């Protein structure tokens, strides 16, 4: 059974169709990168998978349902004085959605939280206020927060944004390790493919209501992207990097689930 499955999925706001006829299966252990310019519906796809946004047509299913999802957001500057330690953040990933105090099973909970922190190498700073940690340290704890619930699917929403190269590598390797060891499916939304290119099995490329799904070789070439963008686009391979010229596809972008949910 696929970890993520979309059939004939369509999402539109009024006349504006973000995507239509989307059939997508992400298998356990597969790493799928979702690419596309701003407004192409990457975040909306994420919201659909999280159950926050109903499809206009078609079906969506996640093996294990919403609580089988580990979600990693982009790194954001946190308030330095926030009363929150790394271990609290990770613990919220485990049972932050449950009602009541949860006084039972404290010991078991602590063991699981410690193990998740250990698995991302965050033990040293897990008890520090989260606001004083570096962006890289915060994102490692974000990975632990997503892993602690033992997810079958990881949804990553630009988790490398605003990290330096070394930390981009560390964080993407942690995600990769998880899917190899536990067969977790990874759906990775990004505007920059290169940092994760060695890990990517398939690419979903969304542009203006059109999309293409395939291996990086099948999608990331001049012909396919020119068709998608309906304008000449040059794809150049330099060593192990892919450069897309003329699509304006690499703009900086910021978006937040809660900001969109509130509007």
């Amino acid at each position, binding site marked *: 059974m696929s970890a993520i499955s979309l059939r004939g999925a369509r999402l539109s706001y009024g006349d504006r169709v973000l995507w239509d006829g989307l059939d997508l299966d992400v298998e356990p252990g597969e790493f799928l990168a979702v690419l596309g310019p701003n407004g192409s519906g990457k975040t909306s796809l994420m919201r659909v998978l999280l159950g926050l946004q109903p499809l206009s047509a078609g079906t969506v299913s996640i093996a294990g349902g919403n609580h089988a999802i580990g979600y990693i957001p982009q790194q954001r500057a946190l308030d330095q004085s926030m009363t929150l330690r790394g271990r609290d953040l990770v613990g919220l990933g485990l049972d932050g959605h449950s009602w009541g*105090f949860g006084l039972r099973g404290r010991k078991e909970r602590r063991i699981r939280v410690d193990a998740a922190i250990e698995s991302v190498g965050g033990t040293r700073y897990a008890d520090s206020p989260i606001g004083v940690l570096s962006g890289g340290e915060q994102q490692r704890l974000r990975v632990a927060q997503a892993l602690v619930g033992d997810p079958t699917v990881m949804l990553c929403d630009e988790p490398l944004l605003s990290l330096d190269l070394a930390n981009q590598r560390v964080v993407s390797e942690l995600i990769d390790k998880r899917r190899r060891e536990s067969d977790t499916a990874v759906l990775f939304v990004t505007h920059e493919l290169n940092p994760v290119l060695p890990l990517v099995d398939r690419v979903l490329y969304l542009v203006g209501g059109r999309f293409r799904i395939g291996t990086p070789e099948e999608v990331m070439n001049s012909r396919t992207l020119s068709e998608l963008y309906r304008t000449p686009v040059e794809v150049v391979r330099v060593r192990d990097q892919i450069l897309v010229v003329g699509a304006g596809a690499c703009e900086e972008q910021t978006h937040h689930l809660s900001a969109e949910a509130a509007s």
Partner: protein
Amino acid sequence: MSFLDLLELDFVQTALIAAAVLGLVAGVLGPLVVTRKMAFAVHGTSELAFTGGAAALLLGIGIGYGALAGSIIAAVLLGVLSRRESDRDSVIGAILAFGLGMGILMLALYKGRASNKFGLLTGQIVGVDSTDLKLLVISSIAVLVVMAFIYRPLFFASVDPDVAVSRGIPVRTLSIVFAVLVGVATALSVQVVGALLVLALMITPAAAAMRLTASPLKATVLSVLFAEIAAVGGILLSLVPALPVSALVTAVSFVIYLVCRGVSWQRSRST
């Protein structure tokens, strides 16, 4: 009368119990109020509690009920009108100003004793009688029970809204529920410290506690402790010199805050 004689008096004992209950509620809610940056909302809500209290005075119903109604209406209004974070500040300002004006109008129309009027703004805990105390205790228990039930998702939504939304937590509903809880607690505090000084019990102890620790549990425990010291200690200190309770509650609370700032400043220098 000596200090011990004063402690024997019924109304003093009632006041102390009321203060202790309030300290607990305000101390528990405080850290989340501070985390959610709701200090101004608390102030706005307390002004509406004043309006409600003034209306009750005019209509001849219990002030406690009026204050409760006023602040719950304020909490719901703030929750509904300020859907966007950027609106919140101005919505509170608008409601607060109108509420205060209406309150003053109602007090002007009221022909009863003047001390009742003044008490709403600056507190008159020694005027709390046993019916008021019953309302206070029942409301407090209700607030604490609801808090215990929603605490984890509410905390999640307060510190990490993006991921909380992703887990299907009803972030918006929770924020309105919490605003109502804060409204109830505010209405209760109004009787003790008055509308102008509610912040001394809801914000200052929590802000002080959060200077000392990054652990949410420890911060809550300390916040309750500080709120108790301020509320109960303030009353005890006010007895012999016969000074206004609210002045001493706010003073104690502020001294604790300054000490905690000092401690955290020392720590940050030594590391």
